[in-house]
């Protein structure tokens, strides 16, 4: 595909997908539409059972939707599945490398499956180098740490130089260091023009995306950059460290604030942060040991859009 077409066509374009599993009582997808673009990391967030994995399976041609369409690089996932598979690199939640084979053997088999021509040992060495796996190349995969195994997974996904990546919770089970490292690599890949659609449950990962899609109950509930989403939240958040109780705050402010206890702190949501703070200081100056005040976090927006009441 030429660069100019790539600019016009979305990497992934999903339109009004409906899907119901056999014997299920309701639809897993209820008109899901979403887009992901080349050169960008698009994060897909949603509670368990919200339809993320079903959407992934349809986009990656593993399932056929009841209605609606999914396009990858302009090709329909149902009508042109082999063209879609050729463009896509997919990493699933469950590992797909063979634990009994060495890292190199795993990559060799995948190269053959992708139909890579010519000397693909060179490509394998490039990937091993890119992912810092050269020293592990001849180790059996099951002897590697979780972080290393995930790197092999990603190396495998990238073997065919896919233009579009589909990653389903790729950092599951990784420690914070390995995770940061993984996201650093993802950014490097996106900078090469690859369109990435990634699911995650972690807000600190969501913050690293260019664009976020929240899905709830089988359809899109919100989308935007992390900043846009945070700004869309109508409340400011005050955290209060004090001996003041929830009922004392409720009595003082009535419905001007939403308050709840979280650990040994009180969490207040309000549209008038500064004036509430002033009033708190006046009324409870003796009891307050510390406070912070700021815009809502991504997690706040996420809970709100998922319809979760805490």
């Amino acid at each position, binding site marked *: 595909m030429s660069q100019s077409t790539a600019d016009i066509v979305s990497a992934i374009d999903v339109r009004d997908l409906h899907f119901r599993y056999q014997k299920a009582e309701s639809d897993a997808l209820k008109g899901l539409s979403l887009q992901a673009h080349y050169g960008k990391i698009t994060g897909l967030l949603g509670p368990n059972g919200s339809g993320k994995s079903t959407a992934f399976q349809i986009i990656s041609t593993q399932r056929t939707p009841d209605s609606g369409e999914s396009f990858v690089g302009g090709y329909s996932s149902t009508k042109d599945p082999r063209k879609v598979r050729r463009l896509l690199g997919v990493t*699933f939640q*469950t590992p*797909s490398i063979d634990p*009994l084979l060495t890292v190199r053997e795993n990559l060799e088999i*995948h190269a053959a499956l992708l139909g890579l021509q010519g000397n693909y040992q060179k490509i394998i060495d490039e990937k091993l180098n890119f992912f810092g796996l050269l020293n592990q190349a001849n180790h059996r995969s099951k002897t590697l740490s979780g972080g290393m195994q995930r790197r092999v997974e990603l190396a495998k996904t990238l073997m065919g130089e896919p233009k579009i990546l589909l990653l389903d919770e790729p950092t599951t089970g990784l420690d914070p260091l390995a995770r940061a490292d993984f996201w650093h690599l993802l950014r490097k890949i996106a900078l090469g023009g690859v369109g990435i659609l990634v699911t995650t449950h972690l807000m600190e990962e969501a913050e690293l995306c260019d664009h976020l899609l929240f899905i709830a109950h089988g359809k899109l509930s919100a989308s935007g950059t992390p900043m846009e989403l945070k700004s869309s939240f109508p409340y400011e958040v005050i955290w209060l460290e004090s001996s003041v109780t929830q009922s004392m705050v409720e009595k003082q402010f009535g419905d001007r604030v939403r308050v709840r206890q979280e650990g040994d702190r009180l969490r207040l949501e309000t549209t008038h942060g500064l004036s509430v703070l002033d009033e708190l200081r006046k009324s409870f100056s003796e009891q307050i040991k510390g406070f912070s005040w700021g815009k809502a976090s991504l997690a706040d927006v996420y809970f709100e859009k998922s319809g979760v009441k805490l």
Partner: protein
Amino acid sequence: MSQSLRAIWYLFYREVLRFTRLRSRWIGSLATPLLFWFMIGGGVGASFGNDSGPGAPGYFEFMFPGILVMAVLFTSIFSTVSVIEDRHQGFLQGVLVTSVPRWNFVLAKILSGAALGLLQAVLLILVASLTGIQVALSAWAGAVLLLFSMGLLLTALGFAFAWILDSVQGFHGIMNLILMPMWILSGSLFPVDRGPKLLQIIGMLNPLSYAVKPLRELISTSHTESLGTGLIAMVAAFALLFFISVSRVEKPAK
């Protein structure tokens, strides 16, 4: 086509690597037929004696081709269990999202199961030569063809079930239910054409019967008239099962 060839070769190569790395697997599938042979062959032979007159083969020798079939059968079951493992481990999903035609995966599984089964059977023939059962040089080609085509059929049968079953336990249950009677009624343990009418009919419908007869003749007399029939029966049954499996595998899940 060259993409398919290479994909099939590498998937085949993977199965062989896995096989050599799971020592327990090849010890198990080689030792079990041997044990059955010495227990049943030795026990039954000694208990009932040899009533076919002097010079005729004893039960120990009679049973040997059946033991080769058993080795092929066990290997094919273990090979296709890996379809379920591949699904659970995620390897299968990794294959299905590539653009490689899916029949490549089916064929590689079946070819590798048949080849590994043949390898086990050949090892058994070599072990058996220590006991005095010699396969004549002129009989080898026919025996190898029969054992390999039998492996194709049995692995294809295993694949057809493994693809629709989700648990290894369930798969073993079903395979025992189908393969054990298939083995017993193939002429491996006793000549089915001398049994009750019902068993005779089942024996006739059982494709394995058509391979056991020429295999026994080849081993005992190094000559058979029914090699062609045996091969055609095996390959036809394999082709049917292969076609069924491919049409299932090509269909995306609903």
